[in-house]
């Protein structure tokens, strides 16, 4: 139930209402139905939904070493991407943007070579 209310809240904000107006409208509806007690759970669900939406839209680049970040951002053409470090990548970068993953890490390339050599 709280998830549905949270989704409506997101849609209200996306449709142009200010957050204050959207929350006021939601509270009014909850009051009308005697469901004010749901409000904290709706807030948590909204938080989850918003963070998932942010994760989906955020451009992220993963590099093996922090020092490689700038070069990787340049190479991937995503200078404003959020950078994370994963040393298991060995080198190169992984870019995730709008639900598309471009994996240019050395780990991926080495795995491809290994699988082609062993599974052929």
């Amino acid at each position, binding site marked *: 139930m709280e998830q549905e209310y949270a989704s409506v809240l997101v849609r209200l904000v996306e449709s142009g209402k200010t957050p204050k107006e959207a929350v006021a409208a939601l509270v009014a509806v909850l009051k009308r139905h005697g469901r004010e007690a749901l409000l904290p759970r709706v807030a948590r669900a909204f938080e989850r939904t918003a963070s998932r939406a942010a*994760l989906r839209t955020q451009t992220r680049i993963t590099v093996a070493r922090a020092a490689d970040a700038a070069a990787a951002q340049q190479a991937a053409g995503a200078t404003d991407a959020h950078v994370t470090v*994963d040393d298991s990548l060995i080198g190169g970068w992984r870019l995730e943007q709008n639900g*598309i*993953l*471009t994996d240019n890490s050395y*780990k991926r390339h080495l*795995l491809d070579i290994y699988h082609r*050599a062993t599974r052929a």
Partner: protein
Amino acid sequence: MNTALIEKVIKEIEGFTPKTEGEHVGRVTAVGDGVVAIDGLADAVMSEVVVFETGAGKRLEDTLEAEAVFGLVLNLEEDGVRAIVLGDAARVVEGATVKSTGKVLSVGASEELLGRVVDALGNPIDGKGPFKKTHPMPVEREAAGVIYRKHVSVPLQTGIKAIDAMIPIGRGQRELIIGDRGTGKTTVAIDAIINQKNEPEATRPICIYVAIGQKESKTARIVQQLKEAGALGYTIVVDAGASAPAALQFLAPFAGVAIGEYFMDKGKDVLVVYDDLSKQAVAYRQLSLLLRRPPGREAYPGDIFYLHSRLLERAARLSEEKGGGSITALPIIETQDGDISAYIPTNVISITDGQIFLLADLFNKGLRPAIDVGNSVSRVGGDAQTKAMKGVAGGLKLELAQFRELEAFMQFAQDLDAATAAQIASGQRMVEVLKQKNGAPLPFAVQVAVIYAANNKFLSDVAVSQVTAVEAAFASFLDAQFSDTLAEIQKTGLLSDDSKKELNRAVEEFRLAHPEFFTENA
């Protein structure tokens, strides 16, 4: 690492050009009981295979030999999808990246699968090594349309007298085997598979036995039985045992029919046994509830009927333009306390072209196969029955039904008129004739000869307790002395006047050779 592999790796490195194509990805937001909620994957389609990235954050050497974990998309939702895990669900963690493959689920099929045991994804599980080359067959495929079908007209001999005589099955038919637990449902299906060895190799159906939610010990016993009977060579066993994830138990029948379609498309006849669809329905109910689909009657999802109808519709006899192949389906349903009016049994009864109903009472009385003739029917098999069998078994069902009625009446009646007594005596002997041992299917010609002899009062002066022994001895006698006549019936499917004369002569000679059997007054 051996030198050959090192050379291969060097060759790969020399020819390496990095590919950095984008892949559609999503992220696991929840995982439990083999079902995964995925955020993203906006372009995913139903039944698409997805790959879970299980090596994220792990060192290269730890991910080299790791098997990929696949999933199957079953729910498309507003912000993501829900999928079932087709492997080790413990390796899928929250936050893991999920890659789209753009492919719908398929299983590999080829002649290499004959004599092998595979899982619901087509991977060999009998320890005999991997397959060299297989052809991918989609697990979900639309059934052949009306114009590509031909009516059922070629018999599929089960080797079981009661079935071939009274509930005949044709190639391309769907005949349900239904009954309580322990009434011999699997035995009937396995005997039908074993009996195919009596068919000429050119027209012998490929058999596929799909074990769903069965004990592994039972499946192992069946494989051994098929091997000992010389039937494994033309049989493929698809196993999703009781310990297999619900996802694989749900998929196994579809994998079985997909493999069958490979052979049907090549113009071959195929017999598929689904043992059993009740357990598949239970597995599908489990998945549906975990996928948060609304529960309906008995908590089954709304599309439980469609689950079975779309599976069984894939059984067909194709037209000559399509190669003339066929898939005959023998689904099995387990009832509770003989209740055939429960939800799943009524669904499958209405989908199939007839049912063989096995009764626990008859089984416990020693009547095996324990077929309830009154409730069993074959809606299309009559057209496929050979003329020889039709000629000898035409009135059998009616005769047995009348006998059952008289038998019930006999319990209260003291004096019986001569005609009724004769009818009861004849019925008792016919019931004995139709008894058959487990794993001993009879060739069609022998069945015809035995039923012909029984119809012609051959057994009227044999004690009821001796009928089974006399019938077995007579079958052996025919095999040894009148093999030409049997071969003629088998080949033509007809019982000609000459064949009848020969069978009459066989009866006379048998009576002379074995007077000890014929002692009771007629």
